[in-house]
């Protein structure tokens, strides 16, 4: 741990930043403890934020960040500890009084009513009235004015269901500003944004801070922390472990505080080596200069191997189940060679799910799908699996696991026909398989009889990874393989993916986390509105280059030929990806 913990030694960005008196703190949370049943989400957590500071609250998933902030915003009442806002004791207050006191929270999952308009969502709960009726015109005018002054421009008359994710987030922030928020809490705001949208958000947050507003940003992405925050509070296992001035620390140091041990590999995933998509226009672009990891420019000149692609799609389209005219996936063509990771980037909801489901056999599609040269379009899920296709689904709780089944049974789900003796399941082999996978993939706790529900998100994900990768396969579909998984498990899963690639497997990696795509992929494709708008070699795929494709600003769909020629990584080449 660093030396700068738990003492409010500085007030952030201002030149006169000295130790603030307790009552100069916008937020002061002390000894916060919160139980959910037997689970202790917060354990004596502390948070001190002076007014006018951009403060990052970081920690792994499950470290208690969101709980702490929900206590601050009045959604939960703490079991112990005190909360002061602007020097006033507000412990256990309601959302309504938090809002009245100028505390606004932007949730990770948007709290917007999709059927209502932007203006209606913004004013809900404190609607302007004209007589007994709702003054819609005034609501829309006020939203326009607020948008203009804060830089959050959204058409007030549009239905929220029709907005892009970035626009929806603007509405969320507008909601808090409309209520006069001076303390703004954002819970993982960039998870769903494209790089340019992230830039815009940073601009808005900086503007708020410069006007004297206080911002608390919950995140686990260290590049974001470095790019925008003035001060950092690190949480681990429900407690505050470190409080550091951003300019006095490094991503590595923060990561160590988050995990409680040295994490070298995870740096790739977290973005420490990757040019920050978050570098703003104000010169805080320190991370960009670190540039690409070992620019693989030479790979571009490498000969295209003669080996047939392990996975090949030609003009694959999927239509929406409720509207045959709407294409969720629009004539997508690409190939993945053995020993290659093709990363599919893109803002969520641009056809990635349809792509994965079409390949896995879960969605009807038109077009050609070949696995190791064999046409598998007519095969069902099980037959494709037996043909060598493994699938880590994007929603592990819905598609990947049966939460009430035990670990051993989950480890053979979809493979159960390989674990039979006569008409019945061979319990002995299932148990042996479980023992082997649990130790090979370090599933904790190592008890095959526990229901999957009882495991943490990271270990649930390891069950799926073990099932799909701990067997013979040639092609792996990895959809959001590390979503909602702790840093330790991310590190582990990334290494598994790299090892599989190096062992000659073809991997299609679909992830909303651009840093993850850039850390693992040999080539990077971008999806936008159901189409694959580009495929680039990793060496030239930077957030700056990919950004315009992700927002639809740039668009040059590639045909199969050019993709084949762009292939950057020959089979069997030793890789430097898994740097120690």
């Amino acid at each position, binding site marked *: 741990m660093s030396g700068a913990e738990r003492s409010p030694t500085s007030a952030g960005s201002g030149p006169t930043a000295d130790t603030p008196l307790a009552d100069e703190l916008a937020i002061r949370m002390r000894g916060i403890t919160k139980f959910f049943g037997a689970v202790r989400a917060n354990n004596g957590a502390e948070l001190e934020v002076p007014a006018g500071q951009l403060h990052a609250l970081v920690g792994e998933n499950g470290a208690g960040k969101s709980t702490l902030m929900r206590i601050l915003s009045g959604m939960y009442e703490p079991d112990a500890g005190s909360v002061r806002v602007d020097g006033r004791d507000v412990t256990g207050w309601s959302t309504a009084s938090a809002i009245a006191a100028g505390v606004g929270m932007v949730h990770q999952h948007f709290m917007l009513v999709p059927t209502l308009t932007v203006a209606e969502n913004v004013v809900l*709960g404190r609607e302007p009235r004209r007589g007994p009726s709702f003054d819609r015109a005034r609501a829309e005018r006020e939203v326009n004015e607020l948008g203009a002054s804060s830089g959050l421009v959204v058409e007030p008359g549009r239905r929220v269901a029709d907005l892009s994710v970035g626009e929806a987030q603007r509405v969320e922030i507008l909601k808090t500003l409309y209520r006069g928020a001076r303390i703004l809490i954002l819970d993982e705001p960039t998870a769903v944004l494209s790089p340019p949208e992230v830039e815009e958000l940073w601009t808005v947050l900086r503007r708020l801070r410069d006007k004297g507003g206080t911002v608390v940003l919950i995140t686990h992405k260290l590049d974001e922390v470095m790019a925008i925050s003035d001060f950092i509070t690190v949480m681990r296992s429900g407690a505050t472990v470190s409080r550091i001035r951003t300019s006095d620390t490094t991503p590595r140091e923060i990561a160590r505080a988050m995990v409680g041990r040295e994490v070298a590999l995870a740096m790739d995933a977290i973005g420490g080596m990757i040019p920050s998509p978050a570098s703003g226009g104000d010169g805080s672009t320190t991370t960009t200069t670190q540039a690409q990891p070992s620019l693989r420019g030479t790979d571009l000149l490498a000969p295209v191997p003669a080996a047939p692609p392990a996975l090949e799609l030609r003009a694959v389209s999927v239509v929406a189940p409720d509207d045959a005219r709407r294409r969720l996936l629009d004539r997508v063509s690409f190939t993945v060679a053995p020993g290659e990771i093709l990363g599919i980037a893109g803002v969520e909801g641009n056809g990635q799910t349809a792509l994965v489901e079409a390949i896995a056999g879960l969605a009807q599609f038109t077009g050609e799908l070949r696995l190791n040269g064999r046409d598998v379009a007519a095969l069902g899920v099980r037959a494709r699996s037996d043909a060598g296709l493994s699938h880590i689904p994007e929603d592990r709780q819905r598609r990947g696991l049966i939460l009430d089944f035990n670990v051993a049974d989950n480890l053979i789900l979809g493979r159960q026909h390989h674990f039979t003796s006569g008409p019945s399941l061979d319990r002995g082999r299932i148990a042996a398989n479980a023992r082997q996978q649990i130790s090979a993939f370090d599933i904790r706790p190592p008890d095959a009889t526990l229901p999957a529900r009882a495991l943490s998100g990271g270990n649930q994900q390891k069950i799926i990874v073990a099932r799909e990768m701990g067997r013979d396969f040639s092609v792996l579909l990895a959809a959001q393989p590390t979503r909602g998984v702790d840093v330790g498990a991310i590190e582990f899963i990334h290494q598994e993916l790299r090892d599989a690639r190096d062992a000659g497997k073809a991997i299609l990696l679909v992830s909303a986390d651009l840093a993850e795509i850039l850390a693992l992929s040999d080539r990077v494709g971008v999806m936008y509105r159901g189409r694959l708008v580009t495929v680039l070699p990793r060496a030239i795929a930077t957030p700056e280059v990919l950004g315009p494709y992700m927002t639809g600003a740039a668009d040059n769909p590639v045909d199969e030929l050019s993709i084949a020629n762009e292939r950057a990584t020959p089979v069997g080449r030793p890789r430097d990806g898994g740097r120690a």
Partner: protein
Amino acid sequence: MIGIIFLAQTIRIAMPYFFAAAGGVVSERVGIIGLSLEGFMLTGAFCTVLGSYYSGDPWIGLLCGIAGGMAAALILAVATIRFRADQVVAGIAINLLAIGATRFFLRLFFNSSSNSPRVVGFGGEQSAGGLFATFGNPIVWLGLITLPVLGLVLYRTPFGLRLRAVGEHPQAARSLGVSVNRLRYIGVILSGALAGLGGAYLASDQHQFTDGMTAGRGFIALAAVIFGRWDPKRVALACLLFAAAETLQIQLQGLQLVPSQFVEMIPYVLTIIALVGVVGRASPPAALGKME
């Protein structure tokens, strides 16, 4: 002339649907399934007769009917909102309770297992015939404006905005300081009042309570709510459509052109066709039936 009779009869038949469907819209818009409209109506009808019988004043009967519907709704509200009972189970239970309770009190107050004595009504009875007589009943006017007024409330007032928000995304409403449970109570009890009013119309129109007299009208009203996609304007049209089908059935029955059993099926077949074919893709309030 036949047209006018048809219209008058359609409006009269539509009347309980208007009230009950308005109740259904309000309830479902706050996220509580309107499965108990039938029970609310039956309770309302019985309480109306009770009030009219002992006071001799149809208006007091009407108020009793509204109160009866609200009381039944309060039970549902407490069960589903306070105690988070499954809405389908609780909704069916209310209906069964209403059947049993009205039967019990029918015996207790009027010493009958089938019907109450005759009570006063509002005029505009069936026998008088014609459009004019129908509109002589003040409750008909009330019924005609119920859904339009509900439309104004839903789309033009802050209260309506909150109501819609609660049924779509209660967490969002709550995060803005809107009291979700309070609005749910209001919605369900208002739905009980409206459906009770529907029962009151039925009872005062027939001048008596008969056992199980609502005969599934609450469910047809619920079908109209779904067919009308939870939008008061369309729901009103759906009510009229179902009522017209029923009127057609009554008229055709007199003519004896086709076996009466087939004719009697018309409203129900129409309901099924409407729900399956036309509604298909309508999306209910997102939080309907769910308690977070």
